[in-house]
């Protein structure tokens, strides 16, 4: 094995380690939804290459309203689906689309675009 091969392999393994750490090992911190005067827990979610924020922390038993704003035209993100709450909404570009649901049980509920490329999580406490 020549020195250049050793360098390539070491760098390669390093990159693999980085990918594993970057995509799977780091846990994202959640954003707590704000409580409005109407009794809703509201949070804006930007849809652009992903959901920002993608982890939203809410309290159980209070209605939640997530306002999605899609600022991209890729057709992948046209729709957002909440399988845990049986809700879905199509997101026209540039429009604010509210998705409302009532989390009853604490737990983690995923939401994603229809194809599952973008993912987010609602953590109910």
């Amino acid at each position: 094995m020549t020195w250049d091969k050793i360098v390539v392999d070491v760098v390669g393994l390093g990159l693999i380690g980085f990918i594993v750490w970057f995509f799977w090992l780091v846990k994202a911190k959640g954003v707590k939804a704000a409580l409005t005067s109407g009794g809703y827990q509201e949070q804006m979610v930007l849809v652009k290459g992903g959901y920002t924020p993608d982890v939203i922390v809410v309290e159980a038993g209070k209605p939640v309203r997530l306002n999605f704003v899609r600022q991209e035209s890729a057709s992948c993100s046209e729709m957002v689906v909440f399988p845990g709450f049986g809700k879905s909404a199509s997101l026209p570009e540039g429009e604010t689309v509210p998705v409302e649901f009532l989390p009853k049980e604490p737990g983690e509920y995923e939401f994603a675009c229809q194809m599952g490329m973008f993912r987010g999580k609602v953590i109910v406490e």
Partner: protein
Amino acid sequence: MESTQTARSAPSATTGVRAGVAGARRVELPVSGLTCHNCVQAVERALRAVPGVRTATVNLAGGRAAVEYDPEKTGLPALREAVKAAGYRVWTATTRFAIRGITCASCVTKIEKALLGTPGVLKASVSVGTEEADVEYLPSVADFGAVKAAVGSAGYEMAESPPPASPEAADREAEAREAEYRSLMRKWWFGAAVGVFTMIMSYPWLFPVLRDWFPRESQRLWYVWAGMGVGSLAVILFSGNHFFMGAWQGLRHRSANMHTLIALGTGVAWVYSTIALLFPQIFPSREFADVYYDVTVVVIALVDLGLAMELRAKGRTSEAIKKLIGLQAKTARVLRDGKEVDIPVEEVLVGDTVVVRPGEKIPVDGEIVDGSSAVDESMVTGESLPVEKGVGDEVIGATINKTGAFKFRATKVGKDTALASIIRMVQDAQGSKVPVQRIVDVVSGYFTPSVAILAILGFMVWYTFGPPPAVVFALIVAVTTLIIACPCALGMATPMSLTTGVGLGALNGILIRGGEALQTAQNLQTIILDKTGTITHGKPVLTDVVASGGFDEETLLRLAGGVEKSSEHPLAAAIVEGAKGRGLALPDAEGFNAIPGHGIEARVEGRALLLGNLKFMRDRKIPLDGLDARALELADGGKTPMFVAIDGKPAGIVAVADTVKEDSKGAIQALKGMGIEVVMITGDNERTARAIARQVGIERVLAEVLPQDKAFNVQKLQLEGKQVAMVGDGINDAPALAQADVGFAIGTGTDVAIAASDITLIKGSLRGVVLAIQVSRATMRNVYQNLVGAFIYNVLGLPIALGVLYPFFGILLSPLLAAIAMSFSSVTVITNANRLKRWKPRAA
């Protein structure tokens, strides 16, 4: 009257104020429940008793009270209370809308005042929390426009919230898609133009003339390549920017997707080529210093083209919903102040009287109040034959009036109409997930980073163990691996099929609530059918007339019908209907006397007539002369026989029965043909139940089941280890529908959004169950085809891209082929889903 008229037109000489403003005001109140002359007087009296009311006259036929009152002394709420106190109700419309910019409590009072000041508005309440207003008003006096103007006069604006399913919204979506398509095509053409040049000039030694002009390692070729480097950078910036932006956005969210892979693959190729061009000395051999700009340019161009084709195909996938949205009527002709006015359909209010002429579209849901016609409901229910409608019948918005003209009272408007509910349900269902998708979701969460890891591993292995020039092979393998992997095909496999399948159902009058119902419906083993209203019409009709004792059938039926006319028993209605159906004019009866549990007696055309059960005949000592044997026979056939005696002598039997729907038998045969066990459940006695079951060919009968025990019986069958479906109406059978693995609700008219059901059949026929199962099977087959196809593609494609075949066959995939394969795979998935649209219901 006279004085106020003149006062209204000229200002008062003494005060300068138009007296009419403070003078009499006239309103027409639509009053419900006016049926007789007595009520008219009662309402008139009640209204006149209100201080400030000058005149009040009620028009019985129009159901309206015309009131003239002094607005200084009284108001609409008081008038309404008066009508209510008299035992009647004023028809009002309620509406709720959002108002923009409510920030404080004082705005609330301001808006409420403005609303209440509008003539015709009875109640208004505005909430700061929800920024919404609830308004109750008289549609005959105020209209939505007036309410809107009132909000405007207070300095606020009604938030335009167009119904989510308006044709305009669909158009906008289509427009956005079209723009996206055009932009992708522009990107493709630019990439393709640069691509052809780049591809040729990357390998000039393959072409006869170019070989001599641009020999390898010549300074001239270096310049051409440098030009290609700049050109491909332009392609990256123009045609491929969305991949790089998408990848970057994704990385910020620690997620990787198709964009990441394409950006990585093309980016690596470009960076390598540029290094090779600028610093050839760092590579040990000249061989390494070739450039691969063609990979960057052509892959970007091809994937753009693939995305454009995908977009086109996707547009077709949701055609069903567009068709439904397109069904909505645009305008409606309503009666306002006794005049017919054309208004946009959004402004039709509950309680409005809508006029429909032959050939016109019925704008909203309602109940016919005048006239009759045949209505083509095929677009909503899938029923191909026009349906006869008369006064009191329900009409569904978006259906087409064929023959007659009629007026109807709107009962559901806007987002509450049957069509709007259907559209909403279909949209929700199309956005739901099929349970098998969960596996896909888990896989796709790991997919993209795994592919990146594989590409790095491939690079390492080829660089370390591969043949020379190792760096070139390693690079090609890594780039090809990144490009060929297609998370899109995997991700789109089920949603595309589901969208098409649910849409397909909707166009055939089957509303599927979501992916879960669809997946379960394909594996059903047992279907429980409720008897009344599901297998049968749910409404007794006259089936047999047996005359004896010298009477003919006609006389018997005419006299029996005459007596039953005065009865309120549901079976009586069947006899009256039956007699009328035979064109008989029914005489009036007198001395009517109903003996509960026995029958009735009355005098008709001077004859004493008895009508009732066997017990009644025995009590009155009527000899039956063998009629009882005939009655038993009828009862065995599931019918309810009633004896008739005239002047103390037996005259015959009339029998009524809840008859089986015409297509029930065929549908049940079809279900059995699919290998599904069919069970009938009913609260009726065993004998009637068996008789019906025999007619339609059902062997297993659960009779005498109390309504509250139906769910328990469903559970018992489930405990036999079967996937059980329940078919029934959505109201009485709701617990059983919810208990079943799949609950089918037989729809009735405009009530389509039945909460307890997984699948709603708009057309009240069992054929719908067969169709629903066929649709679910076809859709799930399509889902599996797509999933298996996408899995196989990736499972085969990735190893080939990594060069597994090279040691044995010397085959190594080019990145360009990988780009074609990748685009092709996602287009295939969508095309396969669209293939589902060609599905036609099979005859059962």
